[in-house]
């Protein structure tokens, strides 16, 4: 989030943001705004809240802790199915079912993925999670398991109604919006505090150099498992909300391409940044609509979706490794010329690299002694 200098200004902006979030479902009834905001936007905003939790969860694991997971869609899907099975089969109340799903994915993510992941480095972890996301739909349909998951049919919600006390003021979509958005706002605040605490700094140290983190006294296996557990907890809650909002989940609801989209979201939004996660969630919310609109102007856009997203991944990774959030920060501190200048500098260094191979940056630490002296570098990005 942008850092404002005066606390008064900060309070003002946060208050304004809160007011917008609270009043958002009614914008479409206001005379001045109804031309711009349709009722459908309430659904958009609800999905935004769900995606925000997904992006935060992925950013915690990948952006802050440097662990590459291509299986994030699978974890969200497990969260959705857990919620569905608890609430629809065992008649657990929905909010409790969602909390249970978060706990379930958190424990599974921490113990089943996190502890083995302690021994795995980047590429191996990427392959294992890649295999997970591809095989999960099949696992959900395997005989025995499908008694609970209903196999390819999936699970729907029959009757979701706002509880009695809210029934009088809110319709179903408004109720969904408020519960989902309130959860997302609360969990974002918690996320902010975690990432700005000792735990968050341990994650970043882990990402920048595991050996360095070890030497700084960070308990590497513990924090790695913790990163997986926390991230999976957020993903599980997001999955539960996803099921509630969509009122359905099936084995193919989220898959490998969604995992890629999540990755696109954190990269173009900004790695290791809460603001970046918000921007990434906006991307996930509007990407289908954006491509469709682009299709009105440029008829091939729809067929070139993969090229556009892939191109965005490559270009952002090469030119703005800190994503949009990085650009926003650079804009705040240096103004538009500063942003432009840093892009130009980056471009010219890329041209230089294509011509000749440059030595790895910085002197290699010769001895453990020397490695200890060096503070952990800023890596590809820095915590916002």
């Amino acid at each position, binding site marked *: 989030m942008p850092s404002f200098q005066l606390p008064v200004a900060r309070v003002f902006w946060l208050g304004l943001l809160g007011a917008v979030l609270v009043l958002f479902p009614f914008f479409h009834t206001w005379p001045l705004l109804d031309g711009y905001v349709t009722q459908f936007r309430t659904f958009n905003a609800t999905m935004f809240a769900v995606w925000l939790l997904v992006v935060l969860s992925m950013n915690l694991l990948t952006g802050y802790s*440097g662990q*590459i997971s291509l299986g994030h869609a699978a974890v969200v899907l497990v969260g959705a199915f857990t919620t569905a099975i608890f609430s629809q089969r065992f008649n657990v109340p929905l909010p409790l079912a969602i909390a249970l799903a978060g706990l379930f994915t958190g424990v599974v993510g921490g113990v089943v993925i996190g502890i*083995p992941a302690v*021994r*795995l*480095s*980047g*590429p*191996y972890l*990427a*392959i*294992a999670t*890649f*295999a*997970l996301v*591809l*095989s999960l739909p*099949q696992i959900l*349909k*395997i*005989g*025995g398991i*499908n008694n609970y998951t209903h*196999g390819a049919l999936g699970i729907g919600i029959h009757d979701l109604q706002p509880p009695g006390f809210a029934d009088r003021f809110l319709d179903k979509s408004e109720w969904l919006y408020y519960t989902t958005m309130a959860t997302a706002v609360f969990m974002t605040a918690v996320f902010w505090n975690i990432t700005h605490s000792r735990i968050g700094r341990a994650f970043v140290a882990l*990402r920048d150099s595991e*050996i*360095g983190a070890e030497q700084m006294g960070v308990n590497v296996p513990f924090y790695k498992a913790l990163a997986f557990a926390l991230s999976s907890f957020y993903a599980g809650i997001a999955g539960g909300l996803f099921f509630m909002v969509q009122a359905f989940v099936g084995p193919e609801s989220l898959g490998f391409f969604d995992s*890629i989209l999540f*990755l696109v979201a954190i*990269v173009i939004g900004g790695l290791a940044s809460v603001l970046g996660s918000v921007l990434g969630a906006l991307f996930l919310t509007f990407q289908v609509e954006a491509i469709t609109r682009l299709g009105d102007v440029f008829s*091939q856009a729809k*067929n*070139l*979706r*993969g*090229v*556009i*997203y*892939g*191109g965005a*991944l*490559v270009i952002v*990774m*090469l030119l703005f*490794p800190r994503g949009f959030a990085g650009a926003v920060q650079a804009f705040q501190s240096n103004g538009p010329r500063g942003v432009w200048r840093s892009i130009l500098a980056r471009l010219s*260094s*890329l041209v230089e*690299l*294509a011509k*000749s*191979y*440059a*030595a*790895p*940056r910085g002197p*290699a*630490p010769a001895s453990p002694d020397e*490695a200890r002296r060096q503070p952990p570098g800023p*890596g*590809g990005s820095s915590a916002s």
Partner: protein
Amino acid sequence: MQEFAQQTLSGIASGSLFAIVALAIVLIYRSTSVLNFAQGEMAMFTTFIAWSFMTRMDFWPAFILAILVAAAMGAALERLVLRPVENAPPLNSVIVTLGLFTIFNGLALWIWGAQPKGFGPFSVFKGDAICAADVCIGRLNVGILVVSLIVMTVLYFLFQRTTLGLAMRATAQNRLASQLVGIPVGNMLTLGWALSAGVGAIAGVMVAQSVSLTTSSLFAILLYAFAAAVLGGLNSPPGAIIGGIIIGVSKNYAATYVPSGVGNVDLTLAFVMIVIVLMIRPTGLLGRPPARRV
């Protein structure tokens, strides 16, 4: 017993598909320490190029031309797109290759459409299955195995018996030291990508003859190829071949002997094998532990 033998042989046959794609993955990982998630899509893309060549010329010239185009493409990608992330954390290079993955997938769909293209078998790979005592293996599968072995032998010779290969191995191990002894490190990395894109094209053309050519045909194989590479060891070319065959055979056994009430388990099997291998022997059957990089 006869069925078991037949299933084993067919498993080896389909394993050969995974083996040859795994070989390309291992090659690039070994020479540049980048795990190329776009390997399958690049191979698919160049196979489509081979297909367009084949509408104008015979199989062999088209095949060779496609390999050259693929190698040039691999070299260009390394220079323009991967060079900046080669010294960055693996996260950056994985993201970039995933970007390439969706780019190639989208481009192929846009250029050639979703309709499957009739593709072979061609030339010597066409013909009746080869049988011995009621157990048969398709000619194409024998061909794929033979081609994999030829590729591997050529690579073995290159890496173990030539100075260029020695320099490539040195570059993969220690770039700083390689620069200091005067190896043009950048060129070695470019060459590594060119080689593996070339091998990818060979793999694509061989595999597509067996599974027909669509924009998704190689994606289905990519997971098994990754499983094979992890199983054999990400930095061991012979491991890739052995891993591919093990995966192929066990996939066939699963399809034959798992009761039908359970449903399909082939993808699950690949996942479970990857997880088990990584837990027991994280560097694979023939791989060696990587040096710890700071």
